[in-house]
Each structure stands twice: as structure tokens, then as C-alpha cells.
């Protein structure tokens, strides 16, 4: 989902890595290397998302964020930071950013998270849904019934939460850390393949033999729920 994105990053190599990657995905990208310019450009409100480094010359990233929020500009902001402790992440999220990514990061992680922010902005304000579906997979959010075509699927509570998260982000790449944050509300890096096991269990129940798979593995990034591979 292409959009107009402002990247505020002072490190040349990282900025090139991010900007060229985002342009390749079809985004319209502006790049600034200091906090004051970032604030100046972001204030006009024409961006769909801002990627903001914390340690910027001129004006610190968190200060830019606070100034934006104080001026009632609610553009989604994704903070990039080399301050990566669990404590820093939680602090970054409570300071009004929409997402927080720790350096070093994989580009797939950044693009997946940006994609989520852009979609959230487009779909903001839509009514609360009572049903989610993808192809012949249907979930009733009220009765918690899960069906694949006519086949009824029994899910454990955590499997249901995982499926609901994937369905709400269908078509997007969701990374392992996004799942850990979104489903379990943990903000640390699991050192093991703990998320993969959850996905493979869910997959065994959702994608039965002979059915077209809806849960796809995206190499080097994470997972995507959708009808076509």
C-alpha cells in the first residue's frame, strides 16, 4: 500500500537503506537529516507516515514527536532507535509514537510495520466488525465460531487470538515481533522460535490437507494471511 512517507534519519547508510527500500516498494519518500527540518515538513500534515530516528541533530526525535502531538498533528509516527532495551521500547510507545523499532532492524520488519500504520490510517473510523473472513475462512467475533467452508474448527483461546490478529492484518506481512506485541503484549525479542510453533499449530488446524493455504510464510520477514500465495 504505497503512501507519502517522511524519513528523518541522520546516518547516511541507514537513510539510504530505508529510503531506497521504501521507494522500491512504490512509496513517495522525502528524506531529512535533522530534527528541525523533520518537524517543519511533518507539520504541514501531508504525510501518511513519519519514520523518525531518536538521535537526530538539531532536535531530538522524541521532542519532534511531542511538538507534533502538541500541534494536534496525528500523522502515524514510527520511532527508530538504537536505544533498544525493553524499558526504552515501552517508554517510546507511551510517549505517543505509533510504533517503535530498534536498530539494527531488518527492512522487512520496517516495511511490515509501516504498512500496518498506513492501513490503519486508511481504515480508521470504520465501524466495529462482527465478522472477519478471508476466502472461505470465516470468523464470527461474537460467537467465536471459526469455519473453513463448512468445516467447523475448534481453536484454543490463544490460537483464536492469533488468528484474529492475522485476519485483521490480512494481506500484510506480520513479523514475529509484531505477533508477540499484538497477541501477547510482550515487547522483547524472543530468542527462540516460540512464535513459529504457534503459527505451525494454527496452520495445521486452518489449512487442512487439500485446502488452499491461507497462512503463508514470508521468507526473512514473517507471515501473511491471504488467499493467494
Amino acid at each position: 500500500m504505497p503512501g507519502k512517507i517522511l524519513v528523518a534519519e541522520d546516518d547516511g547508510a541507514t537513510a539510504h537503506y530505508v529510503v531506497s527500500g521504501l521507494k522500491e516498494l512504490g512509496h513517495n519518500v522525502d528524506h531529512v537529516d535533522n530534527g528541525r527540518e523533520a518537524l517543519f515538513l511533518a507539520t504541514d500534515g501531508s504525510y501518511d507516515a513519519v519514520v523518525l530516528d531518536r538521535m537526530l541533530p538539531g532536535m531530538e526525535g522524541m521532542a519532534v514527536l511531542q511538538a507534533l502531538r502538541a500541534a494536534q498533528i496525528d500523522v502515524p509516527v514510527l520511532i527508530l532507535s538504537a536505544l533498544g532495551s525493553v524499558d526504552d521500547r515501552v517508554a517510546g510507545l507511551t510517549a505517543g509514537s505509533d510504533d517503535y523499532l530498534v536498530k539494527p532492524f531488518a527492512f522487512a520488519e520496517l516495511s511490515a510495520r509501516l504498512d500496518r500504520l498506513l492501513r490503519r490510517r486508511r481504515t480508521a473510523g470504520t465501524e466495529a466488525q462482527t465478522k472477519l473472513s478471508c476466502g472461505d475462512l470465516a470468523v464470527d467475533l461474537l460467537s467465536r465460531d471459526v469455519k473453513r467452508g463448512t468445516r467447523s474448527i475448534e481453536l484454543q483461546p490463544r490460537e483464536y487470538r492469533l488468528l484474529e490478529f492475522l485476519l485483521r492484518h490480512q494481506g500484510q506481512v506480520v513479523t514475529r515481533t509484531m505477533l508477540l506485541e499484538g497477541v501477547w503484549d510482550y515487547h522483547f525479542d524472543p530468542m527462540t522460535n516460540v512464535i513459529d510453533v504457534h503459527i505451525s499449530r494454527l496452520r495445521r488446524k486452518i489449512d487442512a490437507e487439500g485446502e488452499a493455504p491461507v497462512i503463508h510464510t514470508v521468507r526473512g520477514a514473517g507471515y501473511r494471511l491471504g488467499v493467494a500465495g
Partner: protein
Amino acid sequence: MAHPPGWFRSALFRSAHVRFLLLLVAIELCLVGAMLGVVARQLHGAIDARDESVASQLRDDLIDQASGSGSEEFRRSLAGRLRAIQERGDLLALADETGRILIGNVRTVPAGLRADGSARWLLVRAPGVGASGAGVQRRYFISVNSVYGDYRLLVGHASERSEALRSSITEAALKSLLVALPLALLGAWLAIRVIEGRIERISATAAAVAQGRLSERVSLDGSGDSFDKLGARVNAMLDRIGGLVEELRILSDSLAHDLRSPIMRLRARIDTALSNPHDEADWPEVLGAIGLEADRLQAMLSNALEISRAEAGLARRQMAEQDLAVLIADIADLYEPLVEESGRTLTLDVTAPCRALVHREMLTLAISNLIDNALKYGAGEIILSVACADGKATICVADHGPGIPEDQQQIALSRFGRLDNARSESGAGLGLALVEATVRMHGGALQFGRTAGSFRICAVMPAA
């Protein structure tokens, strides 16, 4: 409240030395003043006592005479003595029953004096005949007695407290102040020197530490006074800083040491790929392996970062009271499939709610490290338990593996510490250093329990 005047706020007056000096001078001046006051009082008392006895004698003498003679004879005798009495500055009067003065150097008997022989000090205008200072008020010790029925005899003796005495006392006061002032200054200077000497010891230590001699400490004299206490506090602060600096040094040393091997492996893979430029088919595999090494480096770095944060206690502000039973159940929910996938079971042993002040994320990370270890190095069922007793909350992770031998538990707790049989596994060390630092941040301690066929690691911390 009124603002203090300008001089009070001036830099000179703000100096503790100047204030101290002024205070000492003021105290000494007050002391001298008080002493002189006491001396003057005593002196006056003594003079008054003498005057009183002289007056009493004169009165007794005259009453004796009156009782031994007739009134006319007494009157003549008084007339004969009046001149001498007048010259001494004393008062004498004999009045008849109507109050008319028959003889004497007083115009009237002052009203309010009862003729009962009691004597008191009164201010009276001095009689104007022959005496110097006539007409001025003087202090007299006066008594009035009844003689011959309704006749009244007034006898007064002038106080010998004199202006000369008063001025000599004032002079003495000024002279002693002249002596006291330099003494006060000297005393203040000496006191300031003593205090400065004590402060100087602490100040010199601080300067030495600032110049890099981190092992310098304030020498204490064991007196336990406030300077000694300050010195001890400064020493404790320097010890803490020194400890943190030392830990930081060890961290950076071990980090540099432990980062070498993954970097070495990275280099080796890159070099191998570069020296075989034609095996392009292998590149995705090579790049994947390089990516894995980069991930491992990142994991080690973030682990080290979390430990430092936990040890510095920086994350404490995010701590909140929570039920540990729920926290553990959440962790089990996340890890159960992983444990089952490796053919083991994860059992939850929670009987009752147990509340404690915790940092949910850090504690979860620590416990998941313990579960990871139990998966990698342990065996059999993994039991997660929470129990509250005697104000202590205990979270245990137990399994049926060999556990960590007692002589190796310290190594396991060190950062990146990896026991020999664990070296072959990939990972960023056992992560026990992080677990210990996290538990310590929660005000608790890590305990190992090892029995035949089972091993448990418990975090014991204060319950809410």
C-alpha cells in the same frame, strides 16, 4: 514574610565564614555584656545594703533619744544635729499630728508613707540648703516612725550609688569589649580553621577522584561527628561509583571478548564466499548464515544492554503491582507449544494469587530465559510454580535434568557465561546474568536447588 534586606543576600554575607564569624562575635559580646550586668547588680546591691544599715542605725539612734527625753528637748537636740545630717545629704523631719513640719530639711512628709517604721527606697527632691545638687531627685532610704503619740519622725539616708560609679562601670564595660572583640575574632578564626581543616580532607579526596585517582577515600577519625559521617557517606558513594565503573569495565571487556567469535565466523564466511566467486548458487545460503550471525551478535548486545539497565535499576519506574499467578500463566501460554513440540511437557503449579511489585516485561524475559535453558540443557517435565509465603513471592522453574553443578553456578551467573557442555549450543550465553540482575532489580535473589534427578532455579522476591 518580608524579604531579607539586600546586605543579607550579598555574596559576602552568604559566605558561611563571614556568618560564622559574626555569630561568634555577637555571642561573645552578649556574654561580656551579661557578665558586666551581673557585676553591676552585685555592686549596687552591696552599696544599697550598706546604705540601708546606715539609715537604720540613724533611725534607731533617734528613736532611742526620743524615748529618753521630752518632745521639746528632742526638738532642740534635732536642731543641733540637723546641720550635720544636712551636710551628709540625709533627710530628717519631725512633724506634728497635723503633718506640719516642726523641724527638718523636708517640706512635707511624702504621702503614702505609713508611720510603721518600715523603710523603703524612694525618689525625693533633695533639700536645697547647702548641699550640692540641690533640687535634683535622689534615691533615699526612708522610714517614718511615730513618736510622742501622733508626732511623726522621718529619717532618710541618701543612696551612695553615684554617677561616678555608673560611669566607671560603663567604662569597664567598654574596656572589656575592647579586649573581648579581638578575642572573639580570634576564637571565630580558630573555629573556622578547625572546620576548614575537616572539610579540606573531604574536598581533597573529591579533587583527587576528579583527577582520576578513583581509589582515593576520605580518611575517617572514627569520631562519628557530622564531618566523619559526611566522609563515610562520600566514601560509600565513591564505592558505589567505583563498583559500577568496574562492572562497566568487565562488561565491555567480556563483550569485546565474546563478540570476537561471532565476528570471526562472519569474516570466515565472507572470506570463503569471496574466494569462491563462481559458486553463486551457494550465495543465498552463505548470506543466510551471515544474517544468523548478525542476529546472534544483536541478541548478545541487547542481552548486555538489558542487564546493565536492570543493574542500574533504571527500569524501576515501570514497575507495577501484579498477580504473579497471571504473569506465569501468560508465560506458560506463550511457551507451552514450544515445549510440547520438543517432546516435553510444561506444567503450571499455581494454587493461589500472589501479588508483587514487578516489571512485567523484564520478569517475563527473565523467566522465559529460564524456560529456554530448561529446554536446551534440562530434561523431562518443566514445572513453573508460584507461591507466596511470609511476605515472599517465589517463582521457580524446575526440570528433571542434571542442572548446574554447585561449583559452576557462579560461572553460569556471569555475563555470557557458558558452561563447557553448553558451548556447542548457539546462543548468547545462559542468560542467567540477566535473570539474576532482573531478580535483584525486584529486590530479590536467585536460588538454586539441586537434588538427585531434579534441578530448580527460584527467584525469591518481596511480595506485595
